[in-house]
């Protein structure tokens, strides 16, 4: 079973994602403050806010749609996560040239290609405990899922599992690397941001469950 997503479908998905990222900003800032510099929530709120304003007139083909997203990120933020996202989105744009719809069966491959560019831009490897590990798990999970109505829930479940796995591992790249063993027991902020996005699409809500609300570790 294949579904085709047109520009309106995608805009609706991004609308949910944006709304959620704005709500999640304080949580993501807190998380990032424990391991990095505390700006991930602010970064994503800025991107989401800018994107919200453009969602009603996104261009086609899909490549232009994606390029527009990349440009919006380029206009408002320059942190690691946004740079990585831009690299990924740019790759998706390059791979969807001329397409007016996106096929559900394409998604896992597009994620893998995006990851390739993200690794090129940021120098991270799988296992470094970044958003990449989350994306990798999602790509595998939705590859195995043939029912397109279950893509989001499959992704969500996979991500929960992966975050649980990585929780006990240390961050190996980015600012969080310096936290060393202190990063053990904490979720990676980037993976958590991804979780918020997937939950928004899936309509679920649990990534905030760990949220302690205090930044006393440093």
């Amino acid at each position: 079973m294949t579904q085709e997503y047109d520009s309106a479908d995608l805009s609706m998905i991004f609308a949910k994602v944006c709304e959620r990222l704005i709500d999640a900003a304080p949580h993501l800032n807190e998380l990032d403050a424990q391991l990095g510099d505390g700006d991930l929530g602010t970064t994503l709120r800025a991107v989401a806010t800018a994107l919200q304003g453009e969602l009603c007139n996104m261009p086609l083909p899909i490549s232009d749609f994606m390029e527009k997203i990349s440009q919006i990120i380029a206009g408002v933020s320059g942190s690691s996560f946004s740079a990585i996202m831009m690299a990924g989105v740019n790759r998706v744009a390059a791979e969807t040239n001329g397409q007016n719809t996106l096929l559900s069966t394409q998604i896992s491959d597009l994620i893998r290609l995006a990851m390739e560019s993200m690794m090129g831009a940021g120098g991270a490897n799988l296992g470094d405990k970044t958003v990449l590990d989350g994306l990798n798990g999602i790509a595998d999970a939705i590859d195995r899922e043939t029912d397109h109505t279950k893509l989001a829930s499959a992704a969500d479940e996979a991500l929960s599992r992966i975050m649980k796995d990585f929780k006990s591992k240390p961050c190996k790249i980015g600012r969080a690397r310096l936290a060393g063993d202190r990063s053990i027991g904490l979720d990676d902020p980037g993976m958590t941001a991804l979780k918020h996005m997937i939950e928004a699409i899936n309509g679920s809500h649990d990534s905030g469950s760990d949220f302690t609300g205090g930044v006393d570790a440093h």
Partner: protein
Amino acid sequence: MKKIINDPKNYVDESLEGLVLAYPSEFECIGANKRVVVRPDSKASGKVGLATGGGFGHLPLFAGYVGEGLLDSCAVGDVFAGPSANDVTEAIEAADFGSGVLSIIGNYGGDRMVFNMVKDALESKGVRNQLVIVADDVASAPPLEHSKRRGVAGLTFAFKIAGAAAERGRTLDDVAAITERAMNNCRSIGVALSSCTIPQAGKPTFEIDDESIEMGMGIHGEQGVWRGGLKSADDLADEMLDRVLEDNPIASGERIALLCNSLGATPIDELFIFYRRLAQRLSSAGVDIALPMIGHYTTSMEMAGITVSVMTLDDELESLMREPAACPFWRNL
């Protein structure tokens, strides 16, 4: 949060506005977001352009070092958050006087990725540009992983060296090579006594008790090498100098530039007490502090603490450091 500010959201923009109001012939903000600081009516032509960019909250770093004999442009991010790719693009384009642009940035993931992306994009548009990444903080990674180190106050040296070399009409490759050489000669380390507060966060980035300090902390409050009891100025100076020299030994007879920098709240009195020990130690080791710099050069808002940066000099580096520069935050040596 006790700061003399208005809405935290406007922290960066209002501070930049004040900067331009104070020094209208030295600074101008251009670009879609008004986040690109340039020299107004720059008379530069034909020389290599120099761009930078980084998070805000470190004044005079980064934007304050735009000026004749220093930088041509700076893309300004939010507090402790890098500038956007578009602003970086505009900054590099604004520094293009026909001989290529060198960007000099601190070694932070986001900045590095964004500047690299923009570099490639501009190159494919025919704008010749190179990137030097400064990674001078010895506390942030061991020598074998020196490319993972953070960029801190050594950036000030890099800007000055590159700025003077560009003014002398050196080529893009030359300016980049000289700047790289300067940074190979440069090591820094910091110690923090108190936290800073990101305005939009509204509370200190970290907690540290009244008796403790953190050795090796980064300029955004990144974790250092140890946290422990306050020590005397002399002991701190000794340890910090030892850590820097261990990484880059300096022989008797060598000449150095020495930057003793307040992270923000540490008063000048203390800088001199601290500098006194550095000077005594280096002088008894036969090292000549040819270029001492003491003051606020690379800050972390209201963080209390000191950073030390040492750069060994050769004749060319020393003469580049001594070239006059016109910038409200640079004191000619």
